[in-house]
């Protein structure tokens, strides 16, 4: 393997690798705005400048292929001076609205300005201003903050699949916009907010909800589809505020789709049933305590029991349910359910060429691994137990198959429990730890991000009360 020397460290590299890639792999930090490992190299922000011995001029590390015996300095005086100049130039038109900007706290420009920039500005002219056009329901644009790194344009070209962002005009009046000012069509628009190094593109949904530094990040896995994208669940005080993609080169690389990004909404929604609920004599649903609700459920789950297990539950939960059904229910038939038309794992197909899968539950492949069959809506039963994790489809038409009581355990919405006799609130994916299996067969861990909302309890707790 050829070797180059960066900051005195002798580092091996594969021929063709750029200096910034070699540095990244070895934990040497080179500041950058326009470079992103997923996107084409354009070398237009000039921030990643490094000094190379025997080269007369400063070089951009993102576009400089590493060479054998190359000696690179990332912190020499010349480099520091260049960075300071680049920062000053970049900040010429950047407004000082960090107090308003949602990016503040996780802003690359803010960090680099602090680390490499000057504390004051020499610029005395008018700063340019733009009128911002609507960019659709996901992204809010503020062109005044843009530093023309063109990551968003390259993302749409190379990853998002739609060439819908362009740079109009030139020089100081360059405006990054969608083609003809139309709203974004891509299903991956949220990633634009992630890759934007400034607050130019921010999420409409997260706008002004919380400052970035308040949020605790928990490593988890998206439960939006069978892809199992790695995410960070951002939460504070038991409220989930957003999902951010977490890098995993084998599954989702750096991205998540918008559906997965905003799939946390039901966790803290008002419509979620978070108290044990039992139907009273006058056919109304009423809150009660856990003990009597479970006793009611136990009394009503009789005869031939249909046990429906949402394929959004974790492997641990499904195993617990299987053991429970074997142990406590005399005559039980177990099926999994999740997405309409997905009875077996082979029904799950890629929805597009990037990430999305047609199975809208995360653990379809895991449920199948544990020997469950998909529910086809056939057969007659005396009573039913429905275990649902929050993402599987709502089963509202079970009446035609079930003569007796329908009991729900898990995450339900108040609007969808008309046919249920007892609802025991369970945990969503943010409130529990566990394992799910994605379509490639990879087992991934969910981690508990927040405390259970309301009186929700785990499946294991319900079974402990049952006996």
């Amino acid at each position, binding site marked *: 393997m050829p070797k180059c020397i960066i900051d005195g460290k002798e580092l091996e590299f594969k021929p063709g690798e750029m200096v910034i890639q070699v540095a990244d792999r070895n934990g040497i930090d080179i500041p950058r705005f326009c470079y992103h490992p997923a996107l084409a190299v354009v070398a237009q922000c000039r921030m990643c400048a490094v000094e190379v011995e025997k080269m007369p001029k400063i070089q951009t590390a993102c576009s400089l292929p590493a060479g054998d015996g190359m000696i690179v300095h990332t912190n020499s005086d010349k480099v520091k001076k260049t960075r300071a100049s680049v920062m000053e130039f970049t900040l010429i038109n950047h407004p000082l609205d960090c107090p308003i900007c949602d990016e503040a706290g996780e802003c690359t420009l803010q960090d680099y300005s602090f680390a490499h920039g000057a504390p004051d500005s020499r610029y005395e002219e008018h700063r340019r201003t733009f009128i911002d056009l609507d960019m659709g329901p996901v992204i809010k644009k503020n062109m005044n903050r843009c530093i023309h790194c063109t990551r968003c344009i390259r993302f749409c070209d190379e990853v998002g699949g739609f060439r819908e962002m362009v740079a109009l005009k030139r020089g100081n009046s360059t405006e990054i916009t969608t083609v003809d000012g139309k709203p974004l069509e891509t299903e991956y628009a949220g990633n634009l907010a992630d890759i934007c190094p400034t607050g130019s593109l921010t999420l409409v949904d997260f706008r002004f909800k919380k400052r970035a*530094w308040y949020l605790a990040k928990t490593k988890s896995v998206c439960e939006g589809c069978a892809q199992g994208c790695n995410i960070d669940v951002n939460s504070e005080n038991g409220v989930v505020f957003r999902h951010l993609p977490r890098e995993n080169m084998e599954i989702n690389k750096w991205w998540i789709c918008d559906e997965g990004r905003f799939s946390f909404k039901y966790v803290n929604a008002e419509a979620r049933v978070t108290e044990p609920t039992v139907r009273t004599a006058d056919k109304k649903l009423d809150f009660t305590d856990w003990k009597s609700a479970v006793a009611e459920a136990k009394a009503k789950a009789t005869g031939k029991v249909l046990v429906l297990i949402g394929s959004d539950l974790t492997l641990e939960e499904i195993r617990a349910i299987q053991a429970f059904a074997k142990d406590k229910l005399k005559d039980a038939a177990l099926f999994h359910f999740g997405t309409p038309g997905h009875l077996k794992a082979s029904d799950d197909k890629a929805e597009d060429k990037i990430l999305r899968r047609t199975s809208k539950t995360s653990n379809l492949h895991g449920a199948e691994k544990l020997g469950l069959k998909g529910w086809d809506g056939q057969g007659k039963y005396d009573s039913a137990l429905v275990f649902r994790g929050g993402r599987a489809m709502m089963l509202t038409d079970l009446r035609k198959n079930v003569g007796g009581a329908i009991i729900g355990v898990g995450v339900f919405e108040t609007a969808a429990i008309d046919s249920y006799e007892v609802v025991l609130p369970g945990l969503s994916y943010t409130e529990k730890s566990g394992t799910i299996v994605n379509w490639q067969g990879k087992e991934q861990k969910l981690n508990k991000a927040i405390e259970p909302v309301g009186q929700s309890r785990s499946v294991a707790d319900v079974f402990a009360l049952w006996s």
Partner: protein
Amino acid sequence: MLVNNKKGFLNKFYLFEILTGLKITMRNMLFAKNVTIQYPEERRTYSDRYRGLHYIKSVNGVENCTACMLCPTVCPAECIHIVAGERPDKEKYPVKFEIDILRCCYCGFCEEACPKDAIKLSNIYEMAVSYRDKGVYDKEALLVQRGTK
């Protein structure tokens, strides 16, 4: 061991010492300036740097605050609660701004952290309230301009 140094019958009454002490007492009583003041009628003037009841500075009726959340971040007593929102004339403004003055320790960090020159600590030190919930000042109460800082 006590030693009685006084000689003679009269000296044993300490008359001279009592008079010396009385002289100091009378001088302070009759001629010295009062330390206390007649409080409700008379007020002390404090330094401009005194940290009392908060207010949010407003210019032409528009609050300076943009709900950047730096004051609740820096607040050691965690007594500031802000909810941010958007309105046509201002991109970001505090929909809700509450300070629990019962929890506040008047350190003035909020004033120091504020990038918009909005939150101020006035000279007002009379903050007694008759009910606990009146100790939580909402945005309307904080927008009363209590000083010229």
